C-alpha cells in the first residue's frame, strides 16, 4: 500500500483503524488530565496577572456573589512592571546570562560532539553514555559541586560562579543534539572538499559548521530556554546580588506573596519562551531547506 495517497484518504484510513470507542477510551484520560492540570493552571495564571493581590497575600477574590466583578480586574501589575526600569533590567540580565551560557556551552560542546561523531560505532555508545552519566546526578548536586570548588577560591557569589553553574548543568543538552546532527553528515562531502583543495579550517567553516546549524539551533533552544527560568543557580551560586527572572518570580510567589505580580512575570517569561521556541523552529526549518 505504497503509492502516495491524498491526505483525505490517509486521514480516513487513520480514522478507520480503531473504532471510535477505542480512540476515545485511549486518548481521553491523558487529555483530560493535561487539560485540568496543565492548561487550566496556565489559563489561571493569565487571569491572575490581571487581578489585585489579596489582603494576606495570594489573590483577591475574583467572583463576587458568583459573578466576575470587573472592578477586580486591573492592569496594575502590568503598569507596575513596565513602569519600573528595574524589571526590564532583570529581564535583560537574564537574557544576557542565557546568551553567555549558550555560547560557552556551544564552544565546549562542539569539540566533544565532533569527537563522538567521528568515532567508531562501538566507542560512540560509550562516549555518549559518558556524557549522560553526570547528568544522572541530581541538579542540586551539580550546583553543590561548584559551591565546594569555588568557595575556597573566593569565586563564590560572583557572576562567574552563576555562569559556571549554568554551563555545567546545561552542557549535555548542547552536546547531544549537536552530536546527533554531526553523526548524520556525509563524510564524502569533506573528502570532496579536500580533493578540491580545501584546508582543514576551511573544510570545517565552509562545510561542517553550516551543515550543523540545525543541531546548533536545537541545542540553543534546549539551553537558552531553561536558563531563562532558573532560580536555584543564581540563588545558591550568586547569593543576593544578580537577580534573574526566576529569582524574581520565586520571590513573588513564596516570599512576598504578591501573586499577581508573579503571574505577570511568569506570563511575560512564557511569551518570551514561546517566541524563542518559534524562532528556533523557524531557523531550523529554513536551514534544512538550504542545506
Amino acid at each position, binding site marked *: 500500500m505504497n503509492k502516495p495517497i491524498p491526505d483525505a484518504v490517509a486521514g480516513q484510513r487513520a480514522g478507520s483503524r480503531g473504532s471510535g470507542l477505542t480512540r476515545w477510551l485511549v486518548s481521553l484520560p491523558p487529555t483530560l488530565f493535561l487539560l485540568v*492540570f*496543565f492548561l487550566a493552571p496556565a489559563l489561571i495564571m493569565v487571569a491572575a496577572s490581571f487581578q489585585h493581590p489579596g489582603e494576606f497575600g495570594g489573590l483577591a477574590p475574583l467572583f463576587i456573589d458568583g459573578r466576575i466583578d470587573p472592578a477586580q480586574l486591573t492592569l496594575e501589575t502590568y503598569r507596575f512592571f513596565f513602569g519600573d526600569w528595574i524589571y526590564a533590567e532583570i529581564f535583560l540580565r537574564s537574557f544576557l546570562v542565557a546568551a553567555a551560557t549558550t555560547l560557552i556551552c556551544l564552544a565546549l560542546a562542539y569539540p*566533544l560532539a565532533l569527537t563522538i561523531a567521528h568515532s567508531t560505532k562501538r566507542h560512540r555508545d560509550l562516549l555518549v553514555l559518558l556524557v549522560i552519566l553526570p547528568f544522572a546526578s*541530581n541538579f542540586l548536586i551539580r*550546583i*553543590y559541586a561548584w559551591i565546594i570548588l569555588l568557595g575556597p577560591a573566593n569565586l563564590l557569589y560572583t557572576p562567574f560562579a552563576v555562569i559556571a553553574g549554568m554551563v555545567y548543568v546545561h552542557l549535555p543538552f548542547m552536546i547531544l543534539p549537536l552530536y546527533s546532527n554531526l553523526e548524520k553528515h556525509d563524510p564524502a562531502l569533506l573528502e570532496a572538499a579536500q580533493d578540491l583543495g580545501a584546508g582543514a579550517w576551511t573544510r570545517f567553516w565552509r562545510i561542517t559548521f553550516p551543515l550543523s546549524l540545525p543541531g546548533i539551533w536545537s541545542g540553543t533552544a534546549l539551553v537558552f530556554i531553561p536558563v531563562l*527560568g532558573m532560580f536555584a543557580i543564581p540563588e*545558591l551560586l550568586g547569593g543576593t546580588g544578580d537577580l534573574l527572572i526566576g529569582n524574581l518570580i520565586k520571590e513573588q510567589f513564596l516570599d512576598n506573596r504578591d501573586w499577581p505580580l508573579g503571574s505577570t512575570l511568569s506570563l511575560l517569561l512564557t511569551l518570551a519562551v514561546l517566541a524563542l521556541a518559534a524562532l528556533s523552529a523557524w531557523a531550523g526549518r529554513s536551514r534544512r531547506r538550504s542545506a
Partner: protein
Amino acid sequence: MRRRINWLWAASLAVYAFLYVPLAVVVLFSFNDSLLNAQWVGFTTRWYGKLLHDDEMLRAAANSLFIALTASSVATLLGTMAGIAMQRWPVGLLRFLPFLVLTPVAMPEILLGVSLLLFFRQVLDLTLGLFSILVAHITFSLGFVAIIVRARLAGMDESIFEAARDLGATPWRTFRHVTFPLILPGILAGFLMSFTLSIDDFVITFFVAGVGVTTLPLQIYSMIKVAVSPEVNAVSTLLMALTLTLIALASRLAPDTLKAKS
C-alpha cells in the same frame, strides 16, 4: 589532519574532565574525615552513618520514593495512552494532543510549578502536600513516556496492526498480542525515566510542596543553604548511584531513551 585530530581529542578530554571533576570531588569528599570540604584529612564513612540516623533525611527519602513510584506508575499509564493516541490517530481534535503533551516538557520548570501553585491554592483551595506533588510530577513525566512510546511505535511497520485484524484478531486481541509486546520495552523505559525525573525533581516540587512534606532534593537544598556539610556529599553520592543505575537500565531497554531526552 593528524594535528587537528590531536587538538580535537585534547579539547574533548578537557570537556569530559570539566564534566566529571566536580562530581568526583563531591564523591571523594563524602569520605573525607573533616567537616570542611577544603582539604583531605582521612578516609571515613561516618557521614554515611550520620545519614542513616538523620530522621528528617530518611523521611524525605521515603517520601521521594513513594512519590516516585506512584507518580511514575500513573504517568506511565497515561503517557503510554498518549503516545499511542499521538502516533495512531493524529486526526481531528487529537491533532492538538502533541502540543498538550509536549509543552510541559519543553517549558522552563518554574512556569509549571508556579501555575500549579496558583491552581491548587486559588482555585481548588487545596493544602499543598503529597497530592499536589504527585500531580505535578505526573504532569511533566507524562510527556517523556509519551515521547518514548510514540518513538517506539513510529519505528514499526504500520501494516502489522492491520495484518493482525486481517488474520482474525479483534482490536483488543491485536493490542494484547501485537501492539503491547512490541511497545513493552518502551513502556518500561518510560517508567524508569519518570522515576528518575521524579526522584530528582527540585524546581517544580519546590513550589507545590508546601510546608508539611519534604522530598530528598528539597532536603538537600535546605542543607546546602544552611551549610556545606559532608553529609550532603554523602547523600549526593548515594543519589547519583541510584539514578545512574536507573538510567543505565532504561537505555538498555530502549536505546531511543537517550535521544528522547534531548
